[in-house]
């Protein structure tokens, strides 16, 4: 083989085509779509999902799955809201969210890495537990009356830039650096690609797997902070079902469920695609039942295109 760089194959072509079709289509169909204000809308609306989908990419890279994330975000949102009411301190509030999330991550990681329970089963169990705890903590009520410093997280802006945008830019930068510029990132790829390689490199795969789930939990806490700020409330069922959106975004972005093959930027695009689809259909006033169909069709079509390109096994 020569040193010629092989042409890098385009990743997630289905998603790319879908994005182009949607962007052009919505711009044609609705004059409001391509406005700066609406673009900002889409980004702000997608911020919580992105904060969950980025660490989900890590989890899926390890050949794992986290079904609990929606329930955990909900749990974190009520926990941090209660702390916010009690202390009024943004630092304490954020810490509470991240801590509760990380604890949920410890449970997931412990079940998966140490008791070796398949991720699907383990996180299905945690889902139930987190949902229960959120209900018990609140008695089923949303927790309102958050102080203004918490509301600032979604509603405020710094130097004219809305805070959620700063948060997701920072989140992406952190997660990108972590995945591609640190030894930990290489370990994440190895967890899915070849765990034996980690052992032989003197790295405990269990500890690394644990770290991935704890990281995911901590980000769920951060997502909960943004969500609570957006709702001005902690809500015990606010993010139920978000895990499937997150998994869909990650998969749309070209991350495979096997062998540690993935792409973080793809996840960003996947989240954007889901946001754009919902926003565009709303602007076109497409009925909700048709919207539901469209989401399914987007997912299937994006992968169909992929299939026509991939070589036979």
């Amino acid at each position: 083989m020569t040193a010629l760089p092989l042409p890098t194959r385009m990743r997630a072509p289905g998603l790319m085509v879908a994005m182009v079709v949607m962007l052009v289509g919505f711009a044609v169909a609705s004059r409001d779509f391509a406005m700066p204000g609406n673009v900002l809308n889409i980004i702000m609306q997608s911020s919580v999902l992105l904060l969950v989908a980025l660490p989900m990419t890590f989890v899926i890279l390890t050949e794992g799955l986290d079904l609990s994330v929606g329930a955990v975000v909900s749990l974190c949102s009520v926990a941090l809201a209660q702390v916010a009411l009690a202390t009024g301190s943004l630092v304490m509030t954020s810490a509470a969210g991240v801590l509760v999330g990380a604890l949920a991550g410890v449970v997931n990681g412990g079940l998966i890495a140490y008791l070796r329970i398949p991720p699907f089963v383990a996180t299905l169990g945690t889902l139930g537990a987190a949902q229960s705890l959120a209900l018990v903590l609140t008695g089923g009520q949303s927790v309102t009356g958050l102080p203004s410093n918490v509301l600032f997280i979604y509603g405020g802006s710094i130097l004219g830039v809305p805070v959620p945008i700063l948060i997701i830019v920072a989140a992406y930068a952190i997660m990108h650096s972590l995945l591609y510029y640190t030894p930990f990132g290489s370990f994440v790829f190895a967890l899915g690609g070849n765990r034996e390689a980690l052992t032989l490199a003197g790295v405990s795969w269990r500890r690394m797997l644990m770290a991935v789930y704890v990281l995911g939990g901590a980000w769920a806490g951060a997502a909960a902070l943004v969500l609570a700020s957006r709702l001005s409330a902690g809500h015990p069922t606010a993010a139920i079902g978000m895990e499937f959106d997150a998994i869909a975004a990650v998969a749309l972005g070209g991350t495979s469920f096997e062998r540690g093959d993935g792409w973080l930027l793809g996840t960003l695009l996947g989240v954007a695609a889901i946001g754009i689809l919902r926003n565009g259909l709303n602007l076109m006033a497409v009925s909700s039942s048709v919207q539901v169909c469209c989401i399914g069709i987007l997912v299937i079509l994006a992968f169909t295109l992929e299939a026509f390109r991939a070589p036979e096994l």
Partner: protein
Amino acid sequence: MSIDGVAPGEPNAGGDWRPMTDVQDSADLTPKLELRGISKTFPGVRALTEVSLSIWSGETHMLLGENGAGKSTLMKVLCGAVSADSGEVLYGGRPVRIASPADARKLGIAVIFQEFSLVPHLDVAHNVFLGRAPRGRIPGITDRSRLYAETRRVLELIGFDVDPRESVHRLGVAHQQMVEIAKALSQNARILVMDEPTAALSDRESERLFAMIAKLKADGVAIIYISHRMAEVFALGDRITVLRDGRRVRTLLPTEASPDELVRLMVGRSVDTTYPRQFRKPGATMLEVRGLSAVSGISGIDLIVREGEIVGLCGLVGSGRTEVARAIFGADKVTSGEVRVFGRIHPGSAEGSARLGMALIPESRKSEGLALIRTVGDNLLLAALPQLFRSGLLWVATGRAAAQRIVAQLGIVTASLRQQALALSGGNQQKIVIGKWLVARSRLFIFDEPTRGIDIGAKAQIFALIDELVAAGAGVLMISSEQSEIVHVCDRAYVMRDKRIVGELQRAQLSEENIVRLGMQQ
């Protein structure tokens, strides 16, 4: 079976060996590394019993033994992946503890594994330095430019021309092995363990590896080299240690031993490595391939296989041999040409092959040949299901009888038909893969590297079995990287280069020289 009379631990001629180096260092008076009385028991298996071994700087120490003799356990003890139950390790005369891979690395021990320790979706550089990436100025962040520079340096050292940013999953098996070697070398190892490093390499790449080994030796690196290839053992080895059943049988000098002697020590009895067979007059044409091209890149393939003959398919690794086998069998999509089996046009699917009585014994037994988590019985019946049970209903007794017959016929060593396939040794697993086609009464066999990773005793059995098949009127197309096997076993052979067949050698012309000449010609 006559067991060789040498008791383990008995002083051997090779034990007094000292390296012939110019360096007059006091360290040379003691071995670089010494293992004393290492024992290791896994649940139910005694893997190592009181194995002692010493390696000096600048020595290439060949380690021989059948599968299950304890070589890989010994290696794992050395690299810290497994800890010994008893015994001690001395490094430069001092006792040391190797409890983890990190300990081993600190002592300068590096291992080149046969089963790749690479991460498919990381690039070459990140693989080479996995867990050891150079740190940058920002804490926790990898210094990427240094990472790539260092990798380039190591790759140049072994003369391996590949972009360090290339993702490993895009590399072929041979190149992955080179990355594996680069990974071990990048650790500046003082003790290097290699497990069949040439198994996947072409001759040219092997030559390059041998040159590198010579250079490392000159630098005083101690090398433990595991191989099944006699030629390598004698060409490279300073000393040879033979393991059998977890014990050291003997350590000897190459000059003291003949290949037959080594095989006898490994197996515990005499084995004929020339694989004698009766050459007969071939019968009617069973397989006829005309102008076959496939999506995998092979083109214009013409070949025939007749009743009662073994036809070799050889060439360098990557020359397209496996692709030809897959295209004929219907595993890869064919773009042009035709395949006739027993005169009938082949439908181009694996299912059709099975129906026509054609069998494929694939290169990678575990990933393509067996359902490891299922039982021996399940695997044996897999290919024969539609013809054994024409009604569609599975009769347990019929199935059991059919499977049992093959177990007996092939001498498969298994506790029962309900044993999981993964519990069996490589040789027995290979027999199951062959056996499932015998249950299906196949008559045309394609063997892709049938003896890879199988020990010498089992190898002879496999070849005896193949001979039996052709004696009974079957036709065989056999791919092998070991040219001596082709020369000994085949009636004829086709030689491939660059995805095409470049020549056909009749029995009289069949020699390693001719194969290499055709395969390498530019």
